[in-house]
């Protein structure tokens, strides 16, 4: 779907969908949406809609995948068959495989992985609708799900796509912009408090000068994403406290599942650093 029109952002001073150059699409996050998961999040970002769920820390399977020094974060990024304009065939493709890998690596820095040796944390992200930027949406959702699971973290991961389209450096490209003849797409994810970069990819042609500008746009935009993440986590925890013992969760989970009880004990012993930060 190539954009053959003579769009010129420099001249128009605004983008196809009316946004300013540094303006993101609307972002909504809700945590705790999947009762079975230890932590979860649902995120809408423009047309993108994704679910994230976290299971663990739990026994690493297969056994040889365990690391005696730390927990292994296993991310599976998947898209439903109907989340893209042309039906996606079942089973992960090479793109899914690569994205799963970089998302897992991006989350690793945020988690105190040394605290749970020989275990795994399963992080599952599922795209149910998409329009450019699904990997950063998933990374943003996944880090909320990890925090929701009470997993000790040094920080959240906040991510966004920045880049170039129709002559301008822009934030949060949509599909029409990704199809621009001069499109550059740069998914970037950071630990917002330290500004450390944990996800960084680039497709397209960009000068180093442009990189200097666009990387600042990216970091600033990530920080705005961070505010939405914090807000979502806060809402959940405030709610949780209000509900306290009146927890409406799945009976089978609360009353009788041994695994969950064990897990909860583990959690209680750990400092929930992110939760603390968020509540400040």
């Amino acid at each position, binding site marked *: 779907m190539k954009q053959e029109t003579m769009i010129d952002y420099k001249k128009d001073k605004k983008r196809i969908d009316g946004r300013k150059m540094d303006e993101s699409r609307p972002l909504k996050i809700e945590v705790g949406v999947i*009762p079975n998961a230890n932590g979860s999040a649902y995120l809408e970002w423009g047309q993108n809609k994704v679910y994230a769920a976290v299971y663990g820390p739990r026994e690493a399977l297969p056994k040889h995948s365990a690391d005696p020094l730390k927990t292994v974060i296993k991310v599976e990024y998947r898209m439903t068959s109907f989340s893209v304009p042309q039906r996606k065939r079942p089973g992960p493709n090479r793109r899914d495989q690569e994205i799963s890998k970089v998302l897992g690596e991006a989350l690793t820095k945020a988690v105190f992985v040394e605290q749970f040796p020989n275990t795994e944390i399963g992080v599952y992200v599922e795209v149910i609708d998409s329009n450019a930027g699904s990997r950063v949406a998933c990374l943003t959702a996944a880090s909320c799900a990890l925090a929701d699971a009470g997993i000790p973290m040094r920080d959240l991961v906040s991510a966004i796509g920045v880049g170039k389209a129709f002559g301008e450096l822009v934030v949060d490209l949509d599909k029409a912009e990704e199809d621009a003849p001069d499109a550059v797409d740069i998914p970037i994810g950071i630990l917002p408090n330290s500004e450390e970069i944990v996800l960084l990819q680039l497709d397209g042609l960009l000068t180093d000068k442009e990189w200097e500008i666009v990387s600042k746009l990216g970091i600033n935009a990530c920080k705005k994403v961070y505010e939405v993440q914090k807000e979502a986590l806060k809402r959940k925890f405030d709610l949780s406290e209000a509900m306290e013992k009146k927890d409406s969760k799945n009976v089978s989970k609360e009353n009788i*599942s041994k695994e969950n009880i064990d897990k909860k004990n583990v959690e209680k012993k750990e400092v929930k650093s992110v939760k603390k930060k968020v509540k400040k």
Partner: protein
Amino acid sequence: MRSTILESDIQKVVSLARDGKRLDNRQLDEMREIKIETGMSENAEGSTIVTLGNTKVIAGLKIEIGTPYPDNQDEGSISIGAENLPLAHPDYESGRPDDDEVEVARVVDRAIRESKAIDFKSLCIIKGEKVWVGYLDFYALNGDGNMFDAGSIAALVTFNNAKMPKLDAENRIIMHEYDGKLKLSRKPLLTTFVKVGGKILLDPTYLEEKAAEARFSVGTTEDGFISAMQKGVGGSFNKEEVSYMIDLAFKNSDKIRKQILKI
């Protein structure tokens, strides 16, 4: 393979059932509360999220141009798939569809296909060359049992709301434009039961499924037809139990059909 269900929990469910009770205090013939949302995937020709108690399922439909089967030159077709996403339950795993996923997909498919709800001849574009193929896939978002009925509701609502893609003069799809709706002449729905402690329970939870001696699903239509049946799990039913379940399935699906299709 992970298994988070404990034998003691199963025994609890069995002994409750023997007394005619359930863990969530439902009646044995009571379905859990159903919520429906539609249209969340703009890239799909139809999409639906069904919440059935704690079970949550998303279905979506892509309609594409395909080639007809050699022995049905003037007919389009549908294809239904199911995935128990590892996102939805600690016991679920990724990988090729396992026996459970294949069975639930095929039973949901049969209930619709065999009801003749969709006229495959109406999906023909050019005889012998181009036909419409509808790919409906449903995914567990939170797994708490009865993927059969949750999937069946999600599939029916999705087909019922589905937009047909628009074709250009050369019979190629114009992206993001639509041309009317898919027609459904019947509204089949599955109703699923399990036998626990000798009792018949409608709409089982995940734990009740694990405690089940036997499982039974019936597809029924609003005009009095059975369109599918499927017995599962290692136990048995007698003829009277089957008749009881068929009868209950008609009543139950009539009720749900009204709710979900706003008839």
